[in-house]
């Protein structure tokens, strides 16, 4: 599974430009799905199983986009100004390296600004090594992602775009391991989550599920002086979301998820996220409303080029998801 995670995090796919990552997912799923389709916004939807009398139509959603940058202007000297795709802190940018969808690489430089001042993205530029506008290989509208190799620290793994490629890997693995099920499971690899949970909205409309779960990363509260405080920790198991700032998980599902984890002896932790949203919101608010929950993987340094997760959490998230999907879902 580590090799799939590595492949996924090292493939660029900023929001709206998920075509390369979608191909990696399609290849990883291989023959394990009963049906694969791609919707109008580019989400890949893989169905496994057929709804039976005891089963439900279930949507699992892991987003395949990542934060990135888009070119706004190339100046006469060939320096490239940019805007953000998704939530990017200027703190993580200066000195960073980026790779454009065509493979062009560059580094992020900073205007001479007042010392001690917090820079904004408009104070920064990408230097692709051009000597003038004429020989600059990128143009307005071109898209790049951050470049940072996958780092295997043994129990812990580090990469850019662990958010949410680690969850995509979890979903692919769960799809593969899922045996007989009374449910009809639609694994959605959704687009444009980082710019406003867009892909999951249209995918949820298309799937029209009876119940749905997002799989995403969440903040980890186990680093020094976290603010606000959070009860999650790396290695404490997959997190069962109670709420985040985009939706409140269906309490019936939360209880059922907890009992299922206990019954299967899978470690878990509870998650209350005060800032941040997931595809769960899109599922919950589609059509006439859908009971929705979320399985999260605790992650340090989210939206930086070095997001860290725990290998055991990843494995246990797969086990929990397979357990949840293998049996009738209880909504009482």
């Amino acid at each position, binding site marked *: 599974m580590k090799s799939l995670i590595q492949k996924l995090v090292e493939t660029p796919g900023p*929001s*709206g*430009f998920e*075509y*390369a990552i*979608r191909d990696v997912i399609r290849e990883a799923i291989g023959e394990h799905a009963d049906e694969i389709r*791609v*919707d*109008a*916004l*580019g989400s890949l939807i893989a169905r496994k199983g057929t709804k039976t009398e005891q089963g439900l139509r279930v949507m699992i959603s892991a987003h395949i986009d990542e934060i990135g940058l*888009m*070119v*706004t*202007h190339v*100046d*006469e000297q060939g320096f490239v*100004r940019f*805007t953000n*795709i998704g939530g990017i802190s200027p703190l993580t940018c200066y000195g960073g390296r980026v790779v454009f*969808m065509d493979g062009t690489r560059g580094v992020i430089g900073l205007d001479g600004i007042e010392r001690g001042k917090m820079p904004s993205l*408009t104070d920064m530029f990408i230097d692709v090594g051009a000597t003038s506008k004429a020989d600059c290989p990128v143009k*307005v*509208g*071109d*898209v790049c992602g951050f470049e940072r190799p996958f780092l295997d620290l043994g129990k812990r793994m580090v990469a850019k775009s662990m958010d949410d490629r680690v969850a995509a890997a979890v979903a692919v693995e769960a799809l593969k391991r899922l045996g007989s099920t009374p449910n009809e499971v639609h694994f959605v690899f959704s687009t*444009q989550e980082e*710019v406003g949970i*867009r*892909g999951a*909205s*249209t*995918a949820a*409309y*298309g799937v029209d599920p009876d119940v749905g779960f997002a799989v995403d990363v969440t903040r980890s509260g186990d680093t020094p002086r976290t603010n606000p405080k959070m009860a999650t920790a790396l290695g404490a198991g997959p997190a069962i979301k109670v709420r985040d700032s985009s939706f409140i998980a269906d309490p019936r599902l939360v209880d059922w998820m907890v009992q299922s984890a206990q019954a299967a002896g899978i470690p878990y932790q509870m998650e209350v996220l005060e800032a941040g949203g997931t595809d769960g919101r899109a599922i919950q608010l589609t059509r006439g409303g859908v009971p929705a929950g979320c399985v999260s993987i605790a992650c340090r340094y989210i939206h930086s080029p070095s997001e860290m997760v725990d290998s055991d959490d990843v494995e246990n998230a797969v086990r929990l998801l397979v357990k949840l999907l293998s049996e009738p879902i209880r909504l009482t």
Partner: protein
Amino acid sequence: MTKKIELSAGQVPEIGASQIELLEKLCNATGVSGDEHEVRQIVLEEIKLVADDVKVDALGNVLATRFGRGEQRVRVMLAAHMDEIGFMIVKKHEDALFEFVRVGGIDERQLPGKPVLVGREGLPGVIGAKPIHMTTAKERQNKIEQSALRIDLGPEIGEKVKPGDRATFATRFAITGPSIRAKALDDRLGVATLIELLKHVPAGIDLLAAFTVQEEVGLRGARVAAYAFDPDMAVAVDATPAYDLPHWDEDDENDRYNTRLDAGPAIYVMDRATIPDQRLVTWLQETALDAGIPCQLRQPGGGGTDAGAIHKVRGGIPSVSVSVPIRYAHTAVSLARLDDWANTLRLLHTALGRITPDLLAGERRGG
């Protein structure tokens, strides 16, 4: 619909005296978000003889359809919003002075000293401000908060005004050389463009024209319009700021101009509401290149158009936006070039004529 006029479908629409006259009527009309009545009446009158089907929906959108001919016609939605930014009266004070709020995005520094028209009757008022004689040097360094401003209608006229009435900048339309100077060019330019396209639809598509409401307060009308039309693809036609002015206080180049006047229609690559389908961006760019029509890419960044609502409707709708560049958007007076408008109309008409089902075949891809 026996009265329907069969206008020549293939003919390229031009901007002439009658189109300018229509734009003038549209810009001078009042249509602050939520009360687009006056603009809607103009639109309905203009399209009644050319559309195959016209509806006004629950929110007040005008949904006009013109069917093409032939097999496998792509259903193309075009959206232009009828509403404009403006004001709403919230409280009457003594002496016919009215407290008001802004509707849509208006910089409060733009307000003092501006004449306005209030209510459906267009009653003349002015947003007054303390004259320089009475202000202190310190006061002149600060902006005047909206809460300290009033719309002054004077006695008699003020009797006719009540809370809830809407108001708009009183600017009247003018053609000045190659330019158009008016209020509400955002988005009456789009509305006028859609009317022309309805009159000259290429035959190979079904044109679903949405004249939308409440764009300026959150892309509201377009959402329900797209749900009703359920199109195969959509293009929002709007106006976008051109801040193509030199940096006169610094010696470096202006790298945040959004768009430029005289550079043609602005095609969107990303705003805060939409990341357009690259297949449609390419379709527009290639059309412009092949037909020799100037065009520009709008700098990616903030802002949003009706496409932001449309592309998320139902199972998703491939969408893109095209805007006419205008200087001084969302102020009392904007400035556009007739040529940019004409080229926007030309680009859209030519591009619509090139649509085949192949455009949307396969998966959404990158650029």
